[in-house]
């Protein structure tokens, strides 16, 4: 009986020691709750990206948001400002105009990260902008923008991508529309009929499928579209929405069945297959248009977006890009 008493006393002591509290040191917080030092540009971004759309626009280099396997350099503030204004006018506000700001606030990327140089891979080829899981989009080559030569390609879909001045459509806006499409289709799915139209996809071999030499003749809008149906859908959307009528017709004009000479192993020089009357076979064109139809229906039914309305607004705003004042904050 006495032992029980002692046991209880010992237990009580142990518990008492264990229960002594470590209170937080309320007087010494390491979190600085005062407002950070903001430049004029920071305030402009707060007003035009963060407050209306809950978007964080990072122009200074942030190692935690960059891919460690590449060597890159930060962007200049001058070009970051210009790109921030361009993206707002040509991309963000296009969606706001057509669908409304709530839609943008709910679905857009949350983080934009700018990088000054390209990312070169081991073969000295350049990586395009990347988008991570619908949260962040990283845009490269910002330092190469020539502010006196803002160019958004509206004439030649098959212009070489490396030609200067850089085509902002290819290097920035197309990628953003493409990745944004993925965000939307991950939220609301599209018809599985899409996969049946051009069922033979190239998967990882898409890198060898040339846009003009091969892809279009198989009914794929670009080489990347030929990799798998999800990319095909996003490419259809991004290309349609950023192509002028001239470019769209140029693409459809290329959509004939092709064959290749025996020594054309990279399939860069397609030869039209002619029928008995000497006419080209435009069946790939029908495949493209059928896929476009599904894209159009999806956006109308799932999001209430008229694809052609959106396209008109995007094209109009792209044309306005070269007239924007990209150096002053207003």
């Amino acid at each position, binding site marked *: 009986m006495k032992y029980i008493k002692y046991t209880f006393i010992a237990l009580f002591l142990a518990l008492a020691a264990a229960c002594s509290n470590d209170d937080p040191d309320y007087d010494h917080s390491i979190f600085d709750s005062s407002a950070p030092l903001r430049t004029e540009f920071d305030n402009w971004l707060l007003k035009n990206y963060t407050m209306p759309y809950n978007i964080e626009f990072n122009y*200074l280099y942030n*190692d935690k948001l960059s891919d460690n396997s590449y*060597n*890159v350099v*930060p*962007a200049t503030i001058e070009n970051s400002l210009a790109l921030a204004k361009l993206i707002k006018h040509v991309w963000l506000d296009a969606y706001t105009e057509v669908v409304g700001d709530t839609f943008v606030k709910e679905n857009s990327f949350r983080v934009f990260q700018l990088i000054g140089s390209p990312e*070169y*891979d081991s073969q*000295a080829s350049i990586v395009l902008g990347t988008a991570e899981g619908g949260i962040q989009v990283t845009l490269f080559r910002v330092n190469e923008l020539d502010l006196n030569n803002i160019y958004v390609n509206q004439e030649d879909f098959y212009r070489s991508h490396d030609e200067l001045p850089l085509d902002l459509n290819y290097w920035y806006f197309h990628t953003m529309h493409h990745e944004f499409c993925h965000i939307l289709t991950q939220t609301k799915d599209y018809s599985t009929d899409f996969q049946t139209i051009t069922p033979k996809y190239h998967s990882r071999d898409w890198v060898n499928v040339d846009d003009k030499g091969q892809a279009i003749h198989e009914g794929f809008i670009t080489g990347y579209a030929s990799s798998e149906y999800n990319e095909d859908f996003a490419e259809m959307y991004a290309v349609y929405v950023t192509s002028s009528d001239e470019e769209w017709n140029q693409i459809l004009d290329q959509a004939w069945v092709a064959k290749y000479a025996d020594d054309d192993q990279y399939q860069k020089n397609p030869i039209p297959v002619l029928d008995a009357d000497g006419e080209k076979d435009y069946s790939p064109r029908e495949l493209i248009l059928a896929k476009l139809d599904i894209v159009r229906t999806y956006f109308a039914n799932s999001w209430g977006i008229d694809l052609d309305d959106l396209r008109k607004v995007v094209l109009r705003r792209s044309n306005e890009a070269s007239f924007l004042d990209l150096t002053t904050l207003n």
Partner: protein
Amino acid sequence: MKKTIKIFFALTLAAFAGACTPEVDDVFDDQSAIRIEKAISECDDVLKSAPNGWLMEYYGEADYGGYNVICKFNGDNTVTVANEVYADGSATTHYKLEQSQGVLLSFDEYNKYIHLFSEPKNPFNVGSAGTGFGGDFEFRVISATQDTVKLGGKKHGSRIIMTPLAPDADWDEYCESAAVTEANMSWSTYYVVIGDKQYMLAQSYRTFTYTDEAGQPHTWPYIVTPEGIKFHDPVELDGETFSYFKYSEDHYVKDKYDQDVLAWYDESNANCYLTYEITPPSILLYQKGFYMSPEGASEDFLAAFEAAKSGSASEGEKIGYFYLGPNIKDSGSAFAEWGFQFWSGGYVGAISFLYESSDNYTVTLTPYKTGGNGGYYYNKCGYNTVISLLKGTFTLSVDNDKNPSWIRLTNAANPDSYVTVYANEIDYPFE
């Protein structure tokens, strides 16, 4: 007996109670979050404490050596940077200090004076596309005192030391006098002399490479100060250690061609000095490797380069380099002899030449065998046209006799046929 058991029991319970308390003694006297905040603020104070800025002995990839970068940290989160590569001017941009496994100093707004070394492709074509100089612009602060700041590159691990610049020193003048010293110490062939032994060095950018008797190369990166050549780490050779060869015009010795040459001593070891020889171009071309380029090539050579480029392209390859010289560093015994060596899409090969020189400015080249993939590219990829143009007797001309950055081979029988080869590595010359 009962008492013993009672005491024993009480002691056990007391021990038990002691063991069950979760208290652990603190190792540090403050919490980690507070300590890092303090460290960051102290570091910022140190950085701002140098009134005339810091001299940064900047190293990217060891293969390129060190460069003088000067930076002054201003009070408003900006830093002003200048370097010796861009001879004048400076730029002021944003920097930050934050926590990342210790204190991290980051130059996070583009500043060409520091980001030159991190550009994946720089305007001087140093390094390959995607790597460039292989330099960092984010550094872990290893230690920071008013006399020295030691930095470690975050991505590439380069070790960089910063010392405060003298309060009355002029930035441009410092860089200019370093450039003058470098020009004065610039020759094509160097030797380190220890006692009566001479060790020949190969030079590339700001590194010296010594190849020992076993064929093992040892590369020593260095930076040039107004006073001389300072190695990144002290070098041990033949039982002696040296680290800083100071320029002087006091001591002359004779080179192997019986010319008067200067000897530069290490500041703390009188047993070793750095010297050079005045190498004739015909010997230099044989000893050192030179890279081919379409620049400074005549029409027939340009056409031959085109044929080779198409040949490689038909294999889906790009030509990484065309080289004339002795065994290039990464190749095996198939390249042991002097000749034409190439890299195409990952494949390497050589065509060896017999090399005869009758005087300082004349050589006769005769191709005689292939090595590695040399035969394949010679027969199937149109490299034979380049080789046929390299056969014959050539007159050599250089841009300067001390340390040529290029040598032009002009065909003696047909002066309209010539090609220029360059001392610095040229990657992807035909892209």
